[in-house]
């Protein structure tokens, strides 16, 4: 067993990417994720990898496109406004069925916004992220250990399904330090017979491209891609349940919001209020089944978010509007306090949800 070390979430992502076999990183600095780039700048040259600070986010994502086309594990990272700039590249990679890991350490928006933590890119991450019909696998870590583990998992899933996997973290997750153990068993990168890595005069040329001018053909590609997405939705859902066995009120929260909610749940339980939590770890595919099940058991669901309410729509869909779903939130870089969440719980409880 490896020694536990204290690491920032951002550093844990960077080191875990290297452990996962990523030797190519392209990025452009932006708070609060710059430690990822700084870590890569230090480590990559020592292990024969590439660290390149691109001239812009757009350049960086297109470099990712290039390296992925050649069949290598590759990543980029940014924060909210920078991810918007990468949108075109994300769509092109989806259209070309290229795997990659993209990290979004979210900050408050819209626009240039602020630099404090946020979860307001949930829609952008889970509903596509740019033009065209496509999905990304979206992973939402709630601890530094998960930042590390989901980075490795992200590379594996990306390769397995030829998709972009996105780590959707926030400023708190990126900046905080916690003990972390980095002893992962990494599935090696699978064979990539589609990669443009030289024919050696032994096969026909591979072409990686998202342009397809014949609508019948483009439609077929879209349907095929969504058959693959259906498999992801069936096989790759991850979530954690906390004290749900006897819960009468259910909290839905991911990332830092789930950490805050946990404190509130402990305090509510001390007061005899039966609260539990479903914490999605994959935001896409969204854990629909546990919320559908919870709707048969609890009287109320509270979605705790650092946004104006985005995941709440998926919670309502998954619970099929069988119970009321309310929002407990802060936005623009502010974080709900455990006291705010507790007050919301008590409000619901006294309102007859017991």
């Amino acid at each position, binding site marked *: 067993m490896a020694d536990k070390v204290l690491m920032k979430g951002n550093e844990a992502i960077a080191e875990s990417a290297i452990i996962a076999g990523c030797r190519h990183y392209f990025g452009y600095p932006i*708070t609060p994720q710059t430690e990822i780039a700084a870590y890569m700048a230090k480590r990559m040259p020592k292990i024969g990898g590439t660290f390149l600070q691109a001239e812009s986010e757009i350049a960086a994502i297109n470099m990712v496109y290039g390296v992925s086309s050649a069949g290598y594990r590759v990543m980029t990272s940014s924060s909210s406004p920078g991810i918007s700039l990468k949108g075109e590249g994300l769509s092109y990679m989806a259209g070309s069925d290229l795997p990659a890991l993209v990290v979004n350490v979210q900050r408050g928006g819209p626009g240039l916004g602020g630099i404090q933590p946020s979860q307001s890119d949930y829609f952008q991450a889970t509903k596509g992220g740019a033009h065209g019909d496509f999905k990304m696998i979206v992973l939402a870590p709630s601890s530094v250990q998960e930042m590390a583990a989901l980075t490795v998992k992200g590379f594996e899933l990306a390769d397995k399904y030829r998709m972009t996997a996105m780590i959707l973290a926030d400023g708190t997750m990126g*900046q*905080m330090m916690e003990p972390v153990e980095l002893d992962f068993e990494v599935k090696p990168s699978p064979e990539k017979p589609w990669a443009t890595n030289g024919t050696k005069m032994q096969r026909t040329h591979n072409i990686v491209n998202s342009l397809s001018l014949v609508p019948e053909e483009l439609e077929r590609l879209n349907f095929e891609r969504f058959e693959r997405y259906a498999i992801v939705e069936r096989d790759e859902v991850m979530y954690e349940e906390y004290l749900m066995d006897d819960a009468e009120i259910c909290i839905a929260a991911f990332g830092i919001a789930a950490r805050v909610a946990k404190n509130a749940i402990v305090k509510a339980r001390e007061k005899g209020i039966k609260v539990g939590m479903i914490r999605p770890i994959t935001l896409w595919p969204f854990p629909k089944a546990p919320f559908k099940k919870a709707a048969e058991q609890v009287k109320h669901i509270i979605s705790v978010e650092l946004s104006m309410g985005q995941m709440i729509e998926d919670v309502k869909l998954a619970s099929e509007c069988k119970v009321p779903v309310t929002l407990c939130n802060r936005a623009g870089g502010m974080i709900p306090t455990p006291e705010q969440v507790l007050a919301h719980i008590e409000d619901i409880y006294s309102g007859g949800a017991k």
Partner: protein
Amino acid sequence: MSTKQFLFSGFGGQGILFSGKFLAYKGLTENKQVSWLPSYGPEMRGGTASCSVIVSDEPVGSPIVSNPDILVAMNLPSLDKFEQSVVPGGIIFADSTLIERKVTREDVTVYYIPATKLASDNGYPTLANMIILGKVLKVLGEFNTDDLTAALKKVISAKRADMLDTNLKALTLGADYE
């Protein structure tokens, strides 16, 4: 269950983040659950830099310390900003070299340590943070040279081994201050 929530605050450059990190590592070497969260952003330039540290026997929930059990205030803006947030019965450690006023709360225990002056008088001008932390650990009954050495080894690289001894001396200086 024992959980202690610390808030370290001062000017950027006073080593606020470092002393918080050291405390977190000390918890880690003692098999505690720990978290460390810095404030980040423009407020670091000239205003208050702060960091939240939680040391617990249980898994840490929210890493954000909004009501500290222990506040270490190394400048006046920090005391002004956080004095009221300390839990009743909590402890405030104030660097009395840089904070001329007294704590107004009467429901907390206060220790005034002229850490910045002790640091410059004893030839460790950059270690006021460790001097005040020494006092914190002494008051909490956690001043044990072996544990501190083990934790210092985690935060000071082997190349700077000479700094280990200096930091330990600074911690002791604070612990011994009455």
